[in-house]
């Protein structure tokens, strides 16, 4: 199977979806000849022309707002926002129209569209370029929020998101964009949205994460298993909304202990929701408080300090050990 980076895998998903369905089109700043600032749309303008790969003016609200209209007209726009920090500029259109149009029109106008955006830290970027605010969208009824962690699931999930009848926020962990290659088949491949993956089964404790933090967790889990002899179960959420509560609950009902890891801020973040649901579903199985390993409730700092700000494998190991030690 061909080895691909996440950027290449995403490009493949876009290409095949455009090839299969003329209704699929791409909109965003510099997505045309330039292929997007991260080159995810590279070559598509050349292949499909400017009718289907549209460079937009510099206005994110405009991108999402007009894409909603195109979706109303039966198209399937895949929009790119250059960095997730700039999705704030489109918040009104996302919340008021993209998320709600199906509901507002009682099913008359479902919105089948995708908002792609690179998110998260780790690439030494300037301010407003490292945000992880997926919790905003998870708190917004009407949206789905999908977050891949590697090339293969990125491709399969993006294809699924494009084919989905509902609006999907697709957050791409930019720290993973070119970090490694993985087997990604040429053949069309999708994954169901809303299903978490047990990446490594284990009996002692459940570690839950998603996006770029999956790499950190994988590293931590290797150490925990190999050095510390802890049998960790590692789960990749893949979709934070809908969240696969059943898989999480089943896991924690076996392990009794749990740590959640993400880059987003702590208060009202994804981890809080995971804890709330586990509290509701498997309270009787819990042997220790569920720990959160997240970024603090601070704006993402300037990049000289980002490596200290972001959770690392040591933090995950420490949290797992503390949770195991709890009595």
């Amino acid at each position, binding site marked *: 199977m061909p080895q691909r980076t996440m950027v290449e895998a995403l490009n493949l998903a876009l290409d095949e979806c455009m090839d299969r369905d003329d209704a699929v*089109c791409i909109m965003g700043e510099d997505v045309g000849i330039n292929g997007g600032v991260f080159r995810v749309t590279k070559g598509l303008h050349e292949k499909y022309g400017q009718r289907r790969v549209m460079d937009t003016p510099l206005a994110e609200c405009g991108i999402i*707002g007009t894409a909603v209209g*195109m979706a*109303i*007209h039966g198209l399937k726009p895949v929009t790119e926002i250059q960095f997730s920090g700039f999705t704030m500029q489109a918040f009104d259109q996302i919340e008021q129209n993209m998320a709600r*149009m199906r509901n507002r029109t009682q*099913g008359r106008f479902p919105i089948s569209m995708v908002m792609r955006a690179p998110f998260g830290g780790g690439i030494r970027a300037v301010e407003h370029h490292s945000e992880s605010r997926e919790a905003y969208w998870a708190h917004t009824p009407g949206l789905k929020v999908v977050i891949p962690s590697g090339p293969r699931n990125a491709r399969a999930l993006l294809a699924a998101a494009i084919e989905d009848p509902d609006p999907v926020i697709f957050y791409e962990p930019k720290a993973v964009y070119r970090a490694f290659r993985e087997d990604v088949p040429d053949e069309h491949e999708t994954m169901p949205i809303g299903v978490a993956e047990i990446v490594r089964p284990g009996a002692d404790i459940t570690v839950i994460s998603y996006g770029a933090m999956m790499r950190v967790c994988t590293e931590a889990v290797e150490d925990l298993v190999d050095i510390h002899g802890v049998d960790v179960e590692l789960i990749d959420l893949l979709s934070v909304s809908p969240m696969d509560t059943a898989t999480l609950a089943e896991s924690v009902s076996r392990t009794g202990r749990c740590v959640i890891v993400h880059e987003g801020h702590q208060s009202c973040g994804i981890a809080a929701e995971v804890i709330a649901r586990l509290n509701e579903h498997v309270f009787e199985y819990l042997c220790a408080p569920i720990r959160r390993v997240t970024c603090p409730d601070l704006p993402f700092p300037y990049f000289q300090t980002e490596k200290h700000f972001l959770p690392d494998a040591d933090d995950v190991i420490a949290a797992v050990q503390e949770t195991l030690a709890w009595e």
Partner: protein
Amino acid sequence: MPHETTESTTPERTASDSIIEVQPTRTRSAMDTTPIDLGRIEVLQILDEHAQVDESLDPRYDDEYLLRIHRGLVLTRAFDQRMLTMQRQGEMGTFAPNLGQEACQLGQVIPLTKDDWYSPSYRSFGAQLWRGWSMERLFKLWAGYHEGFPPPPDVNDLPFSIVIGSHVLPAVGVAMGMNYRSEPNCMVVNFGDGACSQGAVSEALNYAAVNKAPVVFVCENNGWAISTPLTKQSATTNLASRGAGFGLPSIRVDGNDILAMTLAVDQAARRARAGDGPTFIEAVTFRMSLHTTADDPTVYRAQELVDPWEARCPITRYETYLQRKGLLDTGAIDRIREECDGEVIVARDRFRTDAVARPREIFDHIYGELSPELEAQKQAYLDRLERKGVE
């Protein structure tokens, strides 16, 4: 009509003169600094306040059509008045009357075909009625029933919009979709003078202009945004200049002149359908009544500001025109009013029987398929309804 651009026009002056006020005009360099010509922005009126018609512009619609338009205007007002009564009697939620804006309303949709699209504001029920929204549906909408919200199945309209300006970008998007699919239709989108201040509306003008989207922007300048007069909303009271600033052909129209409104929109729609891109129409009118039924204009605007507009009533003006044409007399006018009132009453009665809240359905249109979590929330919600004995 470019401004003077030759060197010779610049008188001798020194640097200490204010270049802003005196404005030297020079373009002698090779760089691309062609002088700015914002295009001509015009004012259109066919039927003046005294119902004098400009013969050269009279569209000369046939009699039946002229009378159909008249009935549309009268029905709109009858509906508006009934809504107000029902609201005052507690049968209706807050809504925004459109008294005095009937010509704006109808003129912007009369030229549209069924294949064209329309995107209403919250004050657009005149236009919605013409487009084919039943009165019952509109009663349901404003009385808070879910069924009232979606556009009728056979009508190419967007849902009404209450968040000021938020519908304009999607409307442009629909028009971009027409280009994408090479469909020869157009979109008319309606918003107010206040809406022009929203950044999203500016973005919409730009997206439409850049993409040559087949869209007609109808800015219904009724002088007020709740208590805010246009002079506090904008430093220029010529809102058509907004369109011009984004490179759109822009025109001011007498919004109380049904013939001018219809003509302007018709021409813009034709241009749009022919691939010539968007147009910005500022329709100058006046909000004669309350902002909404929750509003008390006596707090902030003097009656003297309203009075002169009484004489500019779009319906009376048009009736005079029709009378002069021999198509109507006072008897006929009274009869049509009664007929329209009657229609509204019939619809109201149907609404009273038909409208049933359906709390069990609130989970029906949120996603294509409910997630397990939402299924669980729905079940819990239905159990609650059960417990409370709600149907």
